[in-house]
Structure formats: C-alpha cells, structure tokens
C-alpha cells in the first residue's frame, strides 16, 4: 500500500512537471492603488474644473457688453468651460475603466488560485473517484483524487496566468497613454488653469476692495518711511529740552513760509485714511493669501498626480514582469506617492492605500 502511494506520488510529480508550475502574483496592491489613484486624480481635476465651471464672464471697468475684448473673453471662457467639462467626463470614464480593469485582474488572479477547490467541488458533484471507480477510499482513491486536484490547481494557475498576461498586455498601451497624457493634463493644462484662476480671483479681490484703496495703502506703506526720513532730515538739531527747536530745524532751510504744520496735518490725514481702509486692506490681504495658498496647493497636487501616475505605470510594468518570472509586487513607491497626494488633497489616505512599509 505504501509503495502504491509512493508510485502515485511520483506520478503526480511527473504530471505537475508536465503541466508546469505557475506562481500568480499578488495583484491586490496594484488594484487598490489604481482605485486610490483614480479617486485622487479625479478629485484634483474636479476641484479645478468645478471652479472654472462657476466662472461667469465679467465686464471690466470701462467695458460694455458690446466691447470686442469682453466678447473675446466671454467666448474663451465658454469654450474653456466646455473643454474642461468634456475632459472631466473623459477622465471619469478612463478612471472607471482603469479601476474595473484592475479589479478584474484581481478577480482573475483569485479565481486562478482556486483550482484545487474547484476540482474538489467537481469531484463532490461527481461523487468522487472512489465511488465512480468502485474502489475503497482508503486504498488508491485518495492519492488519485489528490493528484487530480494538484493537476487541476497547476492547470488553473497556468490558464489564469495566460489570461492575465493577455489582459495586462492589452492594457499596456492604455497605461502608456495615461503616463504620457497626464503630463499634458496635470502638468500643462492644469498649471495654466490654476494660474488663470489665481489671477482672476486676485483681480476680483482687488476690485472688491474698491478703486485706489489697495494702491493707496501700498503706496503709503512703501513711501511712509522715506517721507518721514525726508522730514527728519530737516530736524537735525532737535533738542529734547527745547521742543520748539524741532520746528525751527524743520523750517530751517525753508525760504518760504514754514509748511511744517500743513505737512503734519497731511500726514495726519493719510494716517486717518489708512486707519479707515485698514479692515478693507486686511480682508484683501487675507483673500490674496488664501488665493495664493490655494494655487500653490493645487500645483503641488497636480505634480503629485503626475508622480503617482508614473509610479503606477512602473507598477504595471512590474506586474508584467512578475507574470513572466513570478516575482512579487509591493507597490511601495506607488503607495508612497499616493500617501503624498492624499495629504496634499487634504484627505485621509484611502483605505486602499495604507501606509507603506519599507520593502
């Protein structure tokens, strides 16, 4: 009996060698990262696109609706809004296709790892070899059944690997396009759009502050010290024990009647106006700081999307390689890039992209 089992075992080995052993890679990290990347890149795009959609053509001071400049800007805005909306739709379809593809790859890999179970299920449904063969289970039925399951397992993996390779090969041109074109979308178009939005919002904030207000504030701030220095240059012999000497000094070089009083009254008026416009200036400064910060954050997020997409394309290459040589995948760089992106977008890292552990 023992000898028989040994013979069968050796035959199982021969059979497995004949079919060939295939290791299916763990593609889950890739699929999870694809979903996380799609979500993050979509969020970043929509953030900019929705603000563009909210813009309305605005008449500038001195312009009328029939002005050629207004008509040009209106047409440019409408065309841009259409283009951004159309691309958003295209990107949504692309992200959905990328995610579905990666999910199907995971599903196929999982199915490819259930050969033995599926064979057992078939054996169960067919009442097994023992009954069909009329043999006592304790003798040869179990080794043959196990042999059948082992063969089924190896065969299934091989079939799954073949299908996986075909699917991954079919996706590769798409991966290449995404890696190249995302440079244009997130590198070029988004950069221009972000700057355009920043400039538009800054101009609106300036106009909301009122004509001349910000300029007056800036001019005074820039010239205030110079003005005081100018005044003080006359007060060279100021004597604290004789305050009137300051006036004398101030007027010392003047041939014309002393204008110190008028000058100081003018300074007082400037200071009063500065005080009056202070809330407006503070609001404006806060708005500009917020507009600039938003632009900087968006630009960093766009760069981060490009970085993550490059890591993702590389991971897809690794997936192809691992189907060839059975090497494992960690998606470490991709996960790290996605962590960075999630942080920039102000979102908690997606469950799909847990903190990467050093490989």
């Amino acid at each position, binding site marked *: 009996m023992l000898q*028989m089992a040994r013979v069968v075992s*050796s*035959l199982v080995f021969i059979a497995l060698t*004949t079919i060939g052993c295939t290791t299916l890679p763990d593609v889950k990290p890739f699929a999870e990262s694809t979903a996380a990347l799609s979500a993050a890149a979509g969020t970043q795009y929509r953030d900019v696109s929705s603000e563009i959609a909210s813009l309305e053509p605005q008449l*500038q*001071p001195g312009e009328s609706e029939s002005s050629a*400049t207004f008509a*040009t800007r209106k047409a*440019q*805005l409408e065309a841009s809004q259409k*283009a*951004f909306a*159309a*691309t958003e739709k295209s*990107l949504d*379809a*692309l992200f959905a*296709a990328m995610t579905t*593809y990666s999910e*199907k790859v995971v599903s*196929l890999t999982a199915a490819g790892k259930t*050969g033995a179970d599926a064979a057992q*299920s*078939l054996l169960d*449904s067919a009442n097994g*070899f023992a009954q*069909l*063969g009329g*043999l006592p289970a304790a*003798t040869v039925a179990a080794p*043959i059944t196990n042999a*059948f399951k082992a063969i089924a397992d190896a*065969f299934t993996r091989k*079939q799954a690997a*073949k*299908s996986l390779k075909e*699917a991954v090969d*079919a996706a*590769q*041109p*798409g*991966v290449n*396009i995404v890696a*190249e*074109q995302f440079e*244009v979308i997130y590198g*070029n*178009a988004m*950069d*221009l759009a972000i*700057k355009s939005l920043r*400039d538009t919002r*800054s*101009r609106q904030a*300036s106009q909301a502050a009122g*004509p*001349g207000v*910000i*300029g007056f504030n*800036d001019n005074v701030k820039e010239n205030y010290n110079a003005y005081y220095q100018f005044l003080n240059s006359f007060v060279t012999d100021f004597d604290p024990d004789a305050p009137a000497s300051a006036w004398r000094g101030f007027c010392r070089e003047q041939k014309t009647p002393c204008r110190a009083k008028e000058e100081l009254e003018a300074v007082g008026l400037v200071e009063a106006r500065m005080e009056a416009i202070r809330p407006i200036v503070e609001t404006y400064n806060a708005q500009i700081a917020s507009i600039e910060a938003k632009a900087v954050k968006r630009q960093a997020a766009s760069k981060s999307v490009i970085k993550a997409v490059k890591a993702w394309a590389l991971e897809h290459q690794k997936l192809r390689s691992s189907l060839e040589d059975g090497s494992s995948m960690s998606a470490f760089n991709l996960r790290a890039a996605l962590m960075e992106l999630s942080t920039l977008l102000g979102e908690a890292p997606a469950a799909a992209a847990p903190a990467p552990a050093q490989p």
Partner: protein
Amino acid sequence: MPINNQEKARILGLGQVELLQSAGMARIEAGKDVSDITKKLLKLSQRTSDRLVSEMATLAHAGISSAQLASAAAALASVNDQIATATNAFALAARIAQEGEKNLTFPFVAGKAASLLDLLKALQKSVADTVGRAGSVGSVAELLAAFDKANDAVEALKDKAEELAG
C-alpha cells in the same frame, strides 16, 4: 505745447500696460509662465492715480487670464482622443480578464478534460513503466485497475463539467 505731469504719467502708464500685455501674450503663446506679468499689471492697476491707466491695466490683466485659460483648454482638447483610446484599452483588458475568469469557473474541465484523460493515460503508462523497471510491486494490478476506473471517472467528470458549463 508742453504736456503736463498728469498727461506724462498717463502716457508712461499706458505704454507700460501695452508692453506688459504684449509680453504676456507672447509668453502664453510660447508656453511660458506669465505670473510676474499679471502681478505687475494688477499692481499697476491698483497704484496708478490715472483712472484710464488703471482700467487699461485691469483689462490687460483680464485678457491675459482669459488667454491662459483658453490655452489650458487647447491643451486638453489635444489629449481627449488619447484618453478615449486609453479607456478603450482598459475596457478591452478588463474584458479579457473577465473572459479568462469565466473560463476558470469550472476550471478548464469542460474544455480541457480531454487533455486530462490523455494525462491519466500517460500516468497509467508511467505506472506500468515504473513497475516494469522496479520488478514486482505488491498490488500493482490493483493500482492499474484503479487507473482504468479513474479514466472512467474523468470521462464522467468531463460530462458533468460540460453540463455545468452549459
């Protein structure tokens, strides 16, 4: 007639707006950054005491922002076809993976049980060869009979798998 200071300031201001606007548009066409130009125009619109200069600077600023956005839209238009091609590639790949998975549902048996039969025959022959080389092995006849029965079992499995696979 000599021009007064106010007129002089206006001429200088408008000249500055014109220069900045031309430089800005040229840079957009060349795909270069215009941030410093828009900042200068905004400052000019805020700081000048001449209303016309301020309005013209604002108008130039708005024109440059608008041209930037139009340039962004043009860049997007150039990639839409590519994005559609990529989407199709992923859809095709997903379909291939799905078909592959379907073929594994009752793993290969319906289509591949015939191969298994061949394999079992090879196993049977290997047993006979092994026994031939090893000389007398106990219960060999019983083992060979088991393989005969196994052949029948696989045939039955094939039928069952075909039935299950529809």
